[in-house]
């Protein structure tokens, strides 16, 4: 048992840190509703129209569409490939895996900076720069290590007897994957898809390098441009930022457990 004073102390510490974390976000939210350019808070006069104005001025309609296309493409691709390769490495075994597996493992610790330069020149020669498809391909390729590890661990956690029973009934690989393993693994697949959504939507570095044409740039990039151009209109800038952050925030509100478990477990590797 812990004492009352101790409990009070615990809450005080946590509440204090929570306020420190939350203050900038809440304050920024009210800045977005401020009636004047300077962003002075005015709680009696909330300008919800700022969101509409920012949306139009920043061309966020286009940019959000670009982000949506890139993100949906990347999430779908990453998830499907992760399921297939997780099944291969976790259940079937892969010919040559003693060489292949460590190479995939390495990918968990490698970040884009290492391969971005040659990749850019390759993509340029293939006409894949300045295209949504190009970004989708990069995101899918980069997502392979984490996706493979995640789904491999998931499938390995399924009781062997279930798979055995299916085999007795004569089920083949495809059926075992789709009708036995996947239905039980739905929460893990959801976590993977959510993380992949967050990482793709929030990306800035790759878009900055591979998308030069303003008419097809995704939302994070559009926000970067917007803040360069409208740095005086603080209220609009804040509104634009919240528009860009919103999709992930909404998903986080609904699926916070999945996000937290994913980020923490994902970092644990094997």
């Amino acid at each position, binding site marked *: 048992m*812990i004492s009352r004073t101790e409990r009070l102390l615990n809450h005080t510490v946590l509440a204090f840190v929570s306020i420190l974390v939350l203050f900038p976000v809440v304050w920024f939210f009210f800045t977005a509703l401020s009636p004047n350019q*300077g962003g002075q808070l005015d709680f009696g006069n909330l300008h919800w129209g700022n969101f509409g104005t920012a949306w139009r001025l920043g061309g966020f309609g286009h940019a959000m569409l670009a982000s949506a296309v890139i993100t949906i493409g990347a999430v779908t691709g990453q998830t499907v*490939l992760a399921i297939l390769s997780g099944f291969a490495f976790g259940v079937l075994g892969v010919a040559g895996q003693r060489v292949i597996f460590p190479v995939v493992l390495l990918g968990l610790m490698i970040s884009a900076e290492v391969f971005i330069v040659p990749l850019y020149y390759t993509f340029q020669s293939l006409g894949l720069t300045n295209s949504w498809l190009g970004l989708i391909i990069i995101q899918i390729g980069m997502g392979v290590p984490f996706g493979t590890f995640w789904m491999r661990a998931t499938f390995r956690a399924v009781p062997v007897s279930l798979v055995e029973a299916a*085999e007795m009934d004569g089920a083949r*690989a495809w059926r075992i994957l789709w009708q036995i393993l996947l239905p039980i693994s739905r929460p893990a697949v959801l976590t993977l898809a959510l993380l992949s959504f967050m990482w793709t939507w929030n990306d800035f570095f790759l878009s900055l390098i591979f998308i030069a044409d303003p008419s097809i740039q995704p939302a994070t990039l559009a926000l970067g441009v917007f*803040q360069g151009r409208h740095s005086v209109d603080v209220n609009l800038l804040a509104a634009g930022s919240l528009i860009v952050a919103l999709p992930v925030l909404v998903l986080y509100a609904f699926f916070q457990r999945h996000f937290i478990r994913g980020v923490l477990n994902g970092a644990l590797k094997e």
Partner: protein
Amino acid sequence: MSSRQLLPRRAAPAAAVPEGAVGPAARGRRRQSPRARRRRWLGLAFAAPALIMYGFVVVVPIVQSVSYSFYSWDGVSTARFVGLSNYTAFFTDPELGEALAHVLVLVLFFAGLPILLGLLSAALLGRGKLRGAGLYRWLLFLPQVLTSVVVAVIWKRIYGPNGPLNSALRAVGLGDLARNWLGDFTWALPSLGVIGTWTALGLCMVLFVAGVAAIPNELYEQARLDGASPVKEFLAITLPALRGQLAVALTLTVTGALRAFDLVWVTTQGGPGTSTTTPALLLYRKAFLNPDVGMAAAIGIVLAIICLLVALIITRLSEENA
């Protein structure tokens, strides 16, 4: 059928390997039934799409990166072989040296401070199930899901000449301290660092508090009976139990500091002067703005090696027995 027997390898009993299955090809390697072998080829087929994409986007370009890094190339004219000179530049080029020194400062703010504060709070919060733990976790984790560009825009405003930080300073009579924080040669880098602290603190707290909650209460009760002081309790029970979580937090935050780009690019672009440059920023400039492609590749390789070493060392330390 090739896919009839789908047992995971760990479950396949060794006795199930039929004697005749060991052909000349398999001899000297591991004994495998033809079925198991066929299953592994099927596995390769299942993994193939992922492996091809990974090879195309990551593996091949890494190899190319290594070869680029031995050349001097402006992206247009013919490349010139320069051996290791792009790498030796790390010891001689003042710009690069400065960027690496900035990383050390960032590590302090991105990793050191959040982990120390996180441990402190874990020690304070100690035992017992806390009511509202879920809500705290939700709040503290929030910066992790926020787009880095948005984080940058928020903090740029906070640090601005008329931002809330300066207003607060003026309000309490410390107006002399007010300044354009991100435009100040001395203060820009620590100011950036604080943004990293803000982002990582919640993550560290969530990790450590969850870790502490998993420690059996009996351990603490026993320690109390033995008359251990709170400090001793922390050192003897809490800290060792948090080894795994510490490793995760360190790996995430240190590599985050090493790779800092988005935040720096959106807030200061490396300025004022060169006071907030980072290796990733120089990489971007050298690859795409004033092309020195070989140098950019070398920076990428060095960053990767440092990140790998950091991850390896941390894993080693965390697995060692106390």
